């Protein structure tokens, strides 16, 4: 058993804030697939657990004008099975397909994944590449901020007695997207490295690389090369050089060496380009 705590499952957001205010050492739980593992490993020992699974305001996937809004409590299975996501935000569908296993996908939420903010998290690189924004709800109302401002370090997000409400993506700006990851065991391990690529409506590219830095990593020079029209084999050499010079993944990683990671993110980038249909057969992956 975990060390003792109290448990409540409020039905409204207001109740959540009341509970947060009354209890100093409280913790939010959604699907619990990160938190319960942490509790067992005694990395976290809250006095009070606030289960937000019943909050309908944080659920569902909707399109409003040119934006798709994904509620924080949306499960990975719901993302995988949603037609709008598969049609318009393919990278998010691909990330759901790679995520954990059947039972985990049924419980794990996208909000929990973002708030947990682990370097190889499935919803790091694709949401950064899609220039997602997050909606945060606090006692004084709702605010909206870019995901790279919200998720600012390993395991750190900007929340102060607040809840992540939803994730918002503009579908006019993002034309095509792709996501790939490499892991030691298919499904049941976090990504060793991961990469997402977005082709924007103005034909510019945005690429992000995971686990090579503390947060999803972007290099504007790489995006400039990708966005040039005469992209060719030599371009990958340049991209590899930029990666080699600009990132230094920590050597204490349990999953892979820095050298391997640097090579593999570029290899995954090729896969993403191929998905988006921009890579001829002459360039091998």
């Amino acid at each position, binding site marked *: 058993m975990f060390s003792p705590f109290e448990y409540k*499952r409020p039905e409204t957001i207001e109740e959540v804030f009341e509970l947060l205010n009354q209890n100093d050492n409280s913790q939010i739980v959604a699907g619990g*697939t990160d938190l319960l593992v942490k509790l067992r490993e005694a990395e976290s020992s809250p006095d009070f657990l606030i289960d937000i699974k019943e909050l309908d305001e944080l659920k569902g996937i909707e399109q409003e004008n040119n934006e798709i809004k994904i509620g924080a409590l949306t499960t990975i299975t719901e993302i995988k099975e949603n037609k709008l996501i598969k049609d318009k935000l393919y990278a998010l569908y691909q990330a759901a397909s790679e995520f954990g296993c*059947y039972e985990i996908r049924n419980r794990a939420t996208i909000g929990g994944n973002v708030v947990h903010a682990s370097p190889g998290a499935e919803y790091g690189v694709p949401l950064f590449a899609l220039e997602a924004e997050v909606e945060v709800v606090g006692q004084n109302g709702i605010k909206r901020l870019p995901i790279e401002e919200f998720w600012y370090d390993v395991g750190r997000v900007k929340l102060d007695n607040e809840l992540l409400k939803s994730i918002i993506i503009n579908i006019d700006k993002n034309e095509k997207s792709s996501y790939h990851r490499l892991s030691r065991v298919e499904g049941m391990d976090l990504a060793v490295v991961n990469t997402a690529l977005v082709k924007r409506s103005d034909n510019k590219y945005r690429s992000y690389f995971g686990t090579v830095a503390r947060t999803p990593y972007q290099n504007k020079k790489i995006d400039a090369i990708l966005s040039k029209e005469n992209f060719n084999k030599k371009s990958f050499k340049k991209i590899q050089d930029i990666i080699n010079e600009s990132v230094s993944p920590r050597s204490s990683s349990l999953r892979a060496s820095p050298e391997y990671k640097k090579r593999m993110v570029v290899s995954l980038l090729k896969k993403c380009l191929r998905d988006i249909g921009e890579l001829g057969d002459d360039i091998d992956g």
Partner: protein
Amino acid sequence: MAKEIKTTINNKKYKIEVPPQMTLLELLREKLIMTGTKEGCGNGECGACTVLLNDKPVRSCIVLAHEIEGKEVITIEGLKETGDFKEIKEAFIAEDAVQCGFCTPGFVMAIKALLNRTKTPTDEEIKEALGGHLCRCTGYESIHKAVKRLVK
């Protein structure tokens, strides 16, 4: 502090005192002495503890017992009373899909959930349903074949 919860386990109604920090797996094994559900990793990674919560397979080692308030749980003990169990058991025997048997209750619950979703799962769907279940003995092939045997 322990609090009383009302729930249904294997079609039987329960009112039980449960401390909030107890997992569903602990409730089943240690309080209700339903030891058919196994604990392997205790961290959501192996699938040995799989039970159905409102018909969906969950890993009971990472579900709090309090979460089943007002819901329905089916464990391997409950399934054992049904015709489906008999069929799955016979398929496992026919394909030699059990060796030490530790992973078997978890696999059986995942297979039951799969067959609830579709009577005719494809190879891909079988792999998706069982992909997160670890077996140290069989090499998986025989378990996959047992499921195929159930798909007519």
